[in-house]
């Protein structure tokens, strides 16, 4: 029995401690910083602002509930085996922050370092995996091209038959791959931010953004008008819609991304396994459920409906890898919205509006970037200087023709 739970058993009444701003709290007339979007990113920025920069007159506004967008809809994959130097460096720092996050918060995000295995079924994929492995290793990320024998050791129950349509020929093993309780990340950040004076206002929709002379001065919400020193936009799934309120056109198209979860079964799969060939990835949660996801839907849409076609495709693909899962039962299928940029990399930093900061374009890679993005964006907001690690991701890159193309490292791995 861990020590931390003793107090709950030994007190007569539950020592409830409200983690966030009370719902009844009125909006202030003015905040130094207004953050639009109370997902992992928005709350993370608020947390680092309050804890490390002493900026606490901050409001995090969300039209829905805390962490209700990409944060709760993603499949909780943490990894840094990207392709570009900029991407790998950025996500590598993120993984490091994840590893210490429970202690940082005093709130267990249940990070489990289980590794990630991506499967190659043809020569072209081996070539791209070797490229990723070489770049990763060069930058200190644990990533290697593995053969069939090693794959069998890593995941003994994987279907390694050669008598199938697409036999597994090799894999990319990423020992740093991990998972965590995704909701807890947003809760931990929000709790830590609120403890330090930040206000979290849920069910508070920003309807308009007032820009005067190239600077943002206030936002209008369904609960009234709020003046602000600056605004950070962190609204995955709706980046281009919110950006346009500030007069900023973002090179983003939004696509649904679906996933599904089975009932709980006794543990039989430790690492995260994905196959770009079959557009599927799956892992077993600590509750025993299999979480299964794949590629984005083929056309842009803001609806978060599920489709039968995607369920069929994910199920068929899962059984190609693990035929014995045929009896496993899907319990729930859902969707989130992914903001896709032309180069599959995010948009972070300055915008054409002077004091309006962008944290956008998070496609399928937002969750795993939560801590590093929050930390660096907070530094930008507090100091006005763009931290080096996120400089390559500024919106300007599209105007300068300097994209950071991660297309090769994002398909069906998330």
């Amino acid at each position, binding site marked *: 029995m861990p020590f*931390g739970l003793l107090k709950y058993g030994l007190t007569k009444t539950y020592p409830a401690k409200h983690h966030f701003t009370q719902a009844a709290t009125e909006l202030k007339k003015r905040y130094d910083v207004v953050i639009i979007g109370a997902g992992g990113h928005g709350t993370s920025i608020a947390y680092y602002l309050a804890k490390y920069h002493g900026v606490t007159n901050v409001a995090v506004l969300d039209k829905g509930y805390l962490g209700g967008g990409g944060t709760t809809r993603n499949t909780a994959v943490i990894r840094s085996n990207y392709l570009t130097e900029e991407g790998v460096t950025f996500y590598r720092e993120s993984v490091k922050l994840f590893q210490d996050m429970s202690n940082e918060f005093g709130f267990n995000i249940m990070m489990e370092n289980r590794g990630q295995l991506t499967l190659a079924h*043809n020569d072209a994929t081996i*070539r791209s995996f*070797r490229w990723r492995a070489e770049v990763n290793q060069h930058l200190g990320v644990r990533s290697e091209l593995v053969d069939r024998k090693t794959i069998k050791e890593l995941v003994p129950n994987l279907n390694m038959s050669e008598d199938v349509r697409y036999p597994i020929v090799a894999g990319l093993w990423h020992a740093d791959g991990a998972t965590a309780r995704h909701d807890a990340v947003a809760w931990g950040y929000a709790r830590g931010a609120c403890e330090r004076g930040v206000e979290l206002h849920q069910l508070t929709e920003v309807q308009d953004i007032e820009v005067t002379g190239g600077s943002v001065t206030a936002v209008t919400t369904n609960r009234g008008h709020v003046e602000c020193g600056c605004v950070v936009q962190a609204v995955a799934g709706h980046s281009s819609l919110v950006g346009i309120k500030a007069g900023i056109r973002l090179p983003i198209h939004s696509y649904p991304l679906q996933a599904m979860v089975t009932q709980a079964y006794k543990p039989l799969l430790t690492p995260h396994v994905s196959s770009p060939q079959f557009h599927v990835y799956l892992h077993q949660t600590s509750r*025993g459920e299999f979480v299964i996801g794949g590629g984005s839907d083929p056309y842009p849409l803001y609806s978060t409906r*599920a489709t039968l076609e995607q369920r069929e495709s994910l*199920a068929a693909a899962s059984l190609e890898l693990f035929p014995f899962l045929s*009896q496993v039962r899907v319990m729930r299928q859902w969707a989130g919205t992914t903001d896709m940029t032309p180069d599959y990399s995010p948009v972070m930093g300055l915008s054409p509006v002077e004091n309006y900061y962008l944290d956008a374009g998070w496609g399928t890679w937002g969750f795993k970037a939560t801590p590093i993005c929050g930390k660096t964006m907070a530094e930008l907001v507090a100091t006005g200087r763009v931290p080096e690690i996120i400089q390559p991701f500024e919106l300007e890159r599209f105007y300068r023709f300097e994209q950071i193309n991660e297309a090769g490292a994002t398909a069906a791995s998330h």
Partner: protein
Amino acid sequence: MPSTNRLPAPYGLLLDRDNPIAFSFENKRYQGIAGDSIASALAANDRWLLSRSFKYHRPRSILTMAGQDANTLVQLPADPNVLADREPVVTDMEVRGQNYSGSLDRDRDALIERFSKFLPVGFYYKAFFRPRGIWEMWARLIRQKAGLGVVDQSHEPDYFDKQYLFYDVVVVGAGPAGMEAALRAADSGCEVLLLDENPVLGGSLNYARLDVEGQRARNLRTTMIADVEANSRIDVMVDTVCNGWFADNWLPLIRGRRLYKVRARETILCVGSMEQHAVFRNNDLPGIMMSSAAQRLMHLYAVRPGRAAVVLAGNNDAYGVALDLLDAGVDVKRIVDLREDPHYDDIARSVIARNIAVTDGHAVYAALPDPKTGHLGSVDIRKIVSDGVCGGKGEIIECDLLCMAAGYTPTYQLICQAGGQLDYDDDKSSFTLTKLPVSCQIAGSVTGTWSIDSVIAEAGHAGTVAGNATGAVQQHISLEQPENDADNVNLPWPIFPHPDGKEFVDFDEDLQIADILNAVGDGYEHLQLVKRYSTSGMGPSQGRHSALATARLVARATNKTIASTGVSTARPPFVAERLAHSAGRSFYPARRSNMHYRHLEAGAQMLHAGAWYRPAYYGPKESRVDAIRSEVSNVRNNVGLVDVSTLGGIEVRGADAGEFLNRIYTFNFAKQPVGRARYALLTNEAGTVIDDGVACRIHEHHYYVTATTGGVDRVYQSMLKWNAQWRLDVDIANVSSALCGVNIAGPKARRVLEALCPDVDLSAAAFPYMGVREGSVAGLPARLIRVGFVGELGYEIHVPQHFGEALWDALLTAGSEHKIAPFGIEAQRVLRLEKGHIIIGQDTDAMSHPMEVQMGWAVSHKKPFFVGKRTIAELEKKQQKRRLVGFVINDPNAPIPLESHLVLDGEEMVGRVTSCEYSPTLDKPVGLAYAQPSKTESGSKIVIKSTGGTRVPADIVDLPFYDPDNRRQQL
């Protein structure tokens, strides 16, 4: 041994009493009857304990008898998490409990419950992480305890498949509402599908009591089923579950091992309602069940649900259940009516007339287990003082059965998936459904209509509306809405907190009142946060029995209305669905060229290229290197033949064909003469090279364009997309699968062809390099293109797909005297590399623009437009960061770099090797790599980080490595 709880016929509608079934549970033999579910067969044998709960390992038994809870999840040898109250028992079935340690009856893990005070809501967020590193140990421990059933990893998948169906009207649910709706829809002459998840039609008519005599339901059932069965326009599917509602009435139905995908013009969802439990201490003990579960046990399965019963009444249905229990010989000890001043109906009055004790205004404050068996032993009933608060002293009533008739919630899942909205009616204390999409209606108790006459009227109306919308005959529709004359079936607050807790809100996840309230107290006020923090509704039953109580508790704790509190989103599937059902038969098609079997006969090793199989090389695997070298050498010295059928072919025809190609590809095609081919490079709007091929001008208004194997579908799609905007006068057709082709290459290629081509002048003057001709080869209609991908005199020959084998055979026969031999993709890779030709996708990546890959010559800057032109112009102004160059490794002892090894400048990554092969012609490794622009001149040296980190020096040379003056391809 006779089953102790079995009732005589006519009880047991589903049973075939002549057909006994022997099976085992937990290694003990039991006898059931055909038609039994696992749970009913065990209950008939007085075996009630079926499972252990997820967290506290509490004993659990039948709750709903309708598959709406996780209490009856059991393990079959190759099938975990099976609903015992839905799964029919079959001969020799071996059933086990799951999620216990030791035995189901004495589960050592039940000890965890002793520590439940130390495990508050979200306890795992609050501990286990200090000191650093300790979580890994806890995570392993917690993980071991996680999960329910065990997946049989040696299980060979069974055969599952799919079928498409189309109907005018699909009616989901074949209770009285569904049957009436189907009948009235069919009146209009449309085709109707009526389906139900149960094995027989009838729904609640099969078990509910509509009148004192118990006759009405039976009579109505008989008549309606006869009408349905006699109606040729109604197809009936029983044992069939509609497992979701997708846009435009796209319904997945599951029956047996088949997924039916049904498109309906109209749907009528008569999906009924789910009975809800009351929340009080120990409300999960075996012996406590929904009143409808007791009725199902008796009427469907002939199982007496207990010997001494207490009925908890929140509505008059409880009295019908009491009558049923009395009829079945159960001693009804008390009816505890939650209502202060109940409005009795005829059935209730008749119960009272039979001198059954009724206590009004009381609640079951706590249930108490029999200390020996753990089964329900007695209930502690107390007077309700105010909402949820009971008086201090109670009365203990001994019983082994408690039936809860505490209210219902509509089966909202499919309806919400269809876009319906769940509201809460405070007067009725019930969820209601509004805002249905067009072409989708609901009828029956799901709408909150309870009296049978109103249900029939409402369903008939829905059926007629749907029938009129789709059928040939228009029926009269009464504008009068049927009146719902039933009393309320729900109470606002059947929730009774107890100081010692264990009043379960969510049985799946062992969540008590305090867990929900404490989640709110911790700040998780939004229902979605309550769900995620407490896990309420996240278990196998997905909130079927917990959503209403959770919403009520959260609403009260946050001072909100229940309507605005709501429930968690109703996501598909409706019932947990095997992966095998949505997977169906494995369907990953393979594409094979017309010459595929010739390659196999010649001993080719095949490789995957997208959906295609292509010959890698000819010969056994162990002689791979030699095979490739000899194929290369034969092309250089004699003549070789390679199958290029997988290449894409696109016909572009029309007055604007030239203009269209000019806009799509980077080169200039306007002045291209008829009978000539031109290299065609494709970039996207970001200036990235995405495909290449050759464009052959067959006629002034007709081009035939080739594309790469992997790229053709994308190229074709993007051509269509662009022309949807441009509206040029062109027809675009992807003819890739209509044609197949070969490339015959080598110094003797012409001599081979001369023997087979009587109608084409093959002389160098008449048919020069990059010429295109139409003619015949071996009597087959063919297009010939003089190309030089491998750097020798060569002809691509394209013929109709089914002539492939004939062409292949003819060329090999005619070429035998010139030592012709087939070569594979591996040899082709070496040959083209020696010639310095890039492969799009291998030597290019998502950022490669034409100048980087030395393709500037293929870009026409004079054209006003092509896709990517503006970007390329901008990129050309910028300083290049890398460039694709040719290199050779001169050190014979250096390891040959692999493709994707990095090119370093000091420790900085500046590029990578994209192609590298040993060149038999040059007798050294040659390759292509991206290198820093300062190192692109011939004679420069670059450093490659090879296997194991070894730095390998490489010398930059001019491309091509082979035949720099291009003499050989122009022979």
